[in-house]
């Protein structure tokens, strides 16, 4: 091999090593670029999915029924055949209650109605809004009196001049509930520009239209905002001013006025969940506004008997509830239904401030339940305390038995 051949061989060897190195580099670059491209594509895909409006989870909003005015007094006649309980209040409130008086003897608790959109339920168990929204084929018939004062009366047809009827059916099972309402209906503006609910992040909740409120009870201005809400017409936006209600924490409910309107509407925070019963009593204005002078007791000792108690000492009940201030709070979804079914239902009349009536349920297993904020809450006060409250009412006040299964039997007898 001459010197040129050696030189050529050396050059070829060096060239081969350079080519090999280049190949390695290009392979590495190719691998890295493939990986980076894949990562970028995945990131873009994720971002796209995240930002796709169609895939964004809507807020968990309970079923908020449409509102219509019924100009007849016969609304309650369409109550289910098993309807057993009824009540009439002196503060233009009329309630239609239904319950299942089956052999199991399960009772309903929510005996509330009001002149604004409210809900009572025909479910055979506790009838808080949350449960009603979750049960599939439940149709809710609510009757509520108009703002015209109505004297307490035994006759159902005398209790209302104009009755608001509220129908609610869950779309969960994809079928509408059977209509039980035959009354003539005419549309009525709710006075809130159609906002059935809105969300307010700074107070942490979904606020549901509950009732109107006297401007005298409207307190501090919280903020002006543009609310995005949902009505039967779809999503709408409107300028609104949000106020607190005197003596009630904004986390529980707020007063809202839209645009240039002078009227105020109360929106309850469906998501509100206090730590204890004491906190709830204070924040919800129970100690300040509530009248707890009426109750239903469901006596199962001798078949099924529903007794109606009136004239109960509100302060005494409140004191007893305050005696359980430390009772821990649960939402309905956190406890089993046997703890939310009431043995005794206390009507919580807030009409000194709001045309709104709700209920407290006392369960012998040791739970106090309430639907005051629409979202069902249960407080564990202990079985002894629960029994003590029930005894205090049933032993000290004369209850009247309410007949069941008859038309017009929704008023105390």
């Amino acid at each position: 091999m001459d010197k040129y051949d050696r030189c050529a061989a050396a050059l070829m060897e060096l060239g081969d090593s350079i080519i090999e190195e280049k190949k390695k580099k290009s392979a590495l670059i190719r691998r890295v670029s493939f990986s980076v491209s894949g990562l970028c594509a995945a990131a873009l895909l994720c971002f796209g999915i995240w930002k796709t409006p169609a895939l964004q989870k809507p807020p968990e909003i309970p079923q908020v029924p449409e509102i219509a005015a019924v100009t007849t007094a016969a609304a309650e006649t369409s109550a289910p055949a098993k309807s057993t309980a009824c009540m009439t209040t002196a503060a233009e409130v009329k309630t239609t209650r239904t319950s299942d008086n089956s052999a199991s003897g399960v009772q309903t608790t929510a005996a509330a109605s009001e002149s604004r959109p409210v809900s009572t339920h025909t479910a055979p168990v506790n009838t808080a809004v949350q449960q009603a929204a979750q049960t599939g084929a439940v149709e809710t018939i609510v009757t509520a009196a108009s703002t015209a004062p109505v004297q307490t009366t035994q006759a159902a047809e005398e209790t209302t001049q104009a009755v608001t009827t509220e129908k609610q059916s869950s779309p969960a099972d994809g079928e509408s509930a059977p209509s039980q309402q035959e009354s003539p209906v005419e549309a009525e503006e709710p006075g809130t520009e159609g906002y059935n609910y809105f969300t307010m992040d700074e107070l942490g909740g979904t606020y549901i239209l509950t009732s109107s409120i006297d401007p005298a009870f409207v307190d501090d201005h919280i903020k002006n905002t543009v609310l995005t809400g949902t009505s039967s017409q779809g999503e709408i936006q409107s300028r609104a001013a949000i106020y607190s209600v005197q003596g009630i924490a904004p986390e529980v409910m707020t007063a809202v006025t839209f645009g240039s309107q002078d009227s105020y509407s109360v929106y309850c925070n469906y998501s509100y969940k206090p730590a204890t019963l004491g906190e709830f009593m204070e924040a919800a204005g129970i100690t300040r506004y509530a009248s707890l002078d009426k109750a239903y007791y469901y006596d199962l000792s001798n078949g099924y008997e529903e007794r109606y108690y009136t004239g109960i000492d509100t302060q005494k009940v409140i004191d007893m509830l305050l005696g359980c201030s430390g009772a821990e709070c649960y939402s309905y979804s956190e406890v089993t239904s046997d703890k939310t079914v009431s043995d005794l239902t206390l009507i919580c009349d807030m009409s000194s401030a709001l045309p709104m009536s709700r209920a407290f349920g006392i369960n012998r297993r040791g739970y106090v339940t309430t639907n005051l904020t629409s979202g069902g809450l249960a407080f564990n006060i202990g079985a002894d305390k629960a029994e003590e409250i029930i005894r205090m009412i049933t032993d000290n006040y004369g209850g009247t038995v309410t007949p069941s299964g008859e038309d017009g039997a929704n008023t105390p007898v």
Partner: protein
Amino acid sequence: MENGASSYLRFLSGEKEGFAELVREYKDGLTLFINTIIRDIHISEEAANEVFLKLYVDKPKYKAGYSFKTWLYTIGKNTAINYMKKFRRTAYSSVDDLCYISDETDIEADYIKSEQNLLIHQAIKALKTEYAQVLYLVYFEELSNDEVSKVMGRSRKQVSDLIYCAKKALRAELERRDSNG
């Protein structure tokens, strides 16, 4: 097709012997040509090696518009200029492991056989770079004026003028050497 071009094409088609033939045929001439620019026979040989490495690794496309030698020397001239600019070794120039023919033999003596040629070559080395380049390409590599103009990146007229001036300078240099004995 001249030998260089056919050898290169054979190399491009995967026959490594073609590359060895190129080295064998053009190594010395390319080194000496680059030496007229760099004026260091070792660095010139390194630059020539780099030219061959470029051929081996990058496999540049040869266009048949000029002779292979012209094309190769153009690459050599550019490489030499890069060498002078950078004055450092590139990746391609990490050729310490390569054998340097100039270490073993006198390339000039081997390449320039006749004594007259040797004298002329030595006189050429004393001339300006451009004169040395053009004379080397014309008289030793026997390139045409067109090819020289291509290699040097000059026009034909410039090359003709350059050859004229270079001859004059070479004559003066030979006379000076002759008078000095």
